[in-house]
């Protein structure tokens, strides 16, 4: 049997193995697919899911949708960052078309210089690494515990290390990344899980957490998303 490139494309069109799985009991959950697409799973877990995707056209189609939506999400965040001034800063008000006045020649020359300087600042700030834009950029903020292993709910304590910060904000999410708890400003590098959080957590479940450090100049550094499980 000779196989041509168009045959391969035909296989692509029919989506790999065409298994009939009416109930899809062995498929990863939508939460797992979303975490996989966000690269928020361990290497091993990700490998299991991508292995499954190679043989399941239903899950592959769902992942295509998730990736397309996440791409729009990244574009949205970029657009918002580019379009909206930081709080407290006012955008210049639009004015009507001015009548030309000789004295404005000087003003326009000064404006041109200011504009060029501003443009330079904007270009430098756009292309310089910004700690508050990307996780992992700028000073490192590393999660220490709980990470990866199973932890008991009693006395659950979040610890991390990173640059000196004015305060930290800790956020804890469930497996579908729904926010369960957000701390007030934490001065040190650890905080004990309050009862309002532990009450909402269940044994043998997966949770995620992230720390945001607010530095002296009000810039923010975010840690990577940490994963942990709860014990019985």
């Amino acid at each position, binding site marked *: 049997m000779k196989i041509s490139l168009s045959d391969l494309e*035909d296989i692509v069109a*029919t989506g790999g193995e065409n298994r009939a799985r009416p109930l899809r009991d062995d498929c990863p959950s939508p939460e797992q697919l979303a975490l996989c697409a966000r690269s928020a799973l361990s290497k091993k877990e990700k490998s299991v899911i991508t292995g499954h995707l190679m043989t399941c*056209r239903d899950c592959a189609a769902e992942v295509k949708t998730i990736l397309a939506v996440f791409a729009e999400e990244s574009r949205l965040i970029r657009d918002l*960052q580019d379009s909206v001034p930081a709080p407290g800063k006012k955008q210049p*008000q639009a004015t009507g078309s001015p009548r030309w006045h000789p004295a404005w020649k000087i003003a326009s020359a000064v404006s041109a210089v200011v504009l060029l300087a501003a443009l330079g600042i904007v270009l430098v700030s756009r292309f310089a690494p910004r700690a508050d834009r990307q996780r992992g950029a700028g000073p490192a903020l590393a999660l220490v515990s709980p990470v990866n292993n199973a932890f008991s709910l009693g006395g659950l304590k979040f610890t991390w290390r990173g640059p000196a910060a004015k305060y930290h904000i800790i*956020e804890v999410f469930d497996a579908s990344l729904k926010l369960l708890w957000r701390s007030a400003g934490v001065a040190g590098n650890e905080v004990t899980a309050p009862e309002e959080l532990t009450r909402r957590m269940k044994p043998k479940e997966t949770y995620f957490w992230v720390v945001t450090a607010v530095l002296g100049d009000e810039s923010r550094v975010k840690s990577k998303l940490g994963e942990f499980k709860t014990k019985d």
Partner: protein
Amino acid sequence: MSPTESPAEREPVERILARFSHLVAARINAFRFRDYGLEQADLAQDIFVRIWEYYEKNDKNIRHLESYIYRVVNSVVIDAIKRARKEGAALRRLGRDTYEPPNASGSKGDEYKHRLRATVLGSVKQLKPSRRKVVGLYLAGLTLDEITALMNWKKTRTNNLFYRGLEDLKRILAAEGDAHED
């Protein structure tokens, strides 16, 4: 809208959020969700309202909004997929899900295609793990850009693994007598 916020500040956010909500709804809708009763307009409205309300109620700091957007998008897309799975399973149990993948109708070429698929997928299993993953995901319908995003790799890495994988695949098929013809 807050009294301290000018229309000039408000409009870009509102416009961008509205465009985003419609784009996300369109992406979700493209995946047969309409078959299961999900309407694009409802989805777009839901996404827009949830993010906008959060923006209005809080300090209007876009950096704070970012993590909320992640959660809204996650919950919307996960809910949509769960609903589609549930509806799809119900339809399949009833034998009413008439969806067939493209080119998979009951023509007499089906047996040939089935054999072809089995041959190629059997050969893919012989590839080196990293190349097998890229070729396997490609054959499952993902584009190289999607594989790059999913694996969190650089595009060049995905391309290299894919083309080396294809070369290996051709060699394996040729050795088995199923020569690949360019």
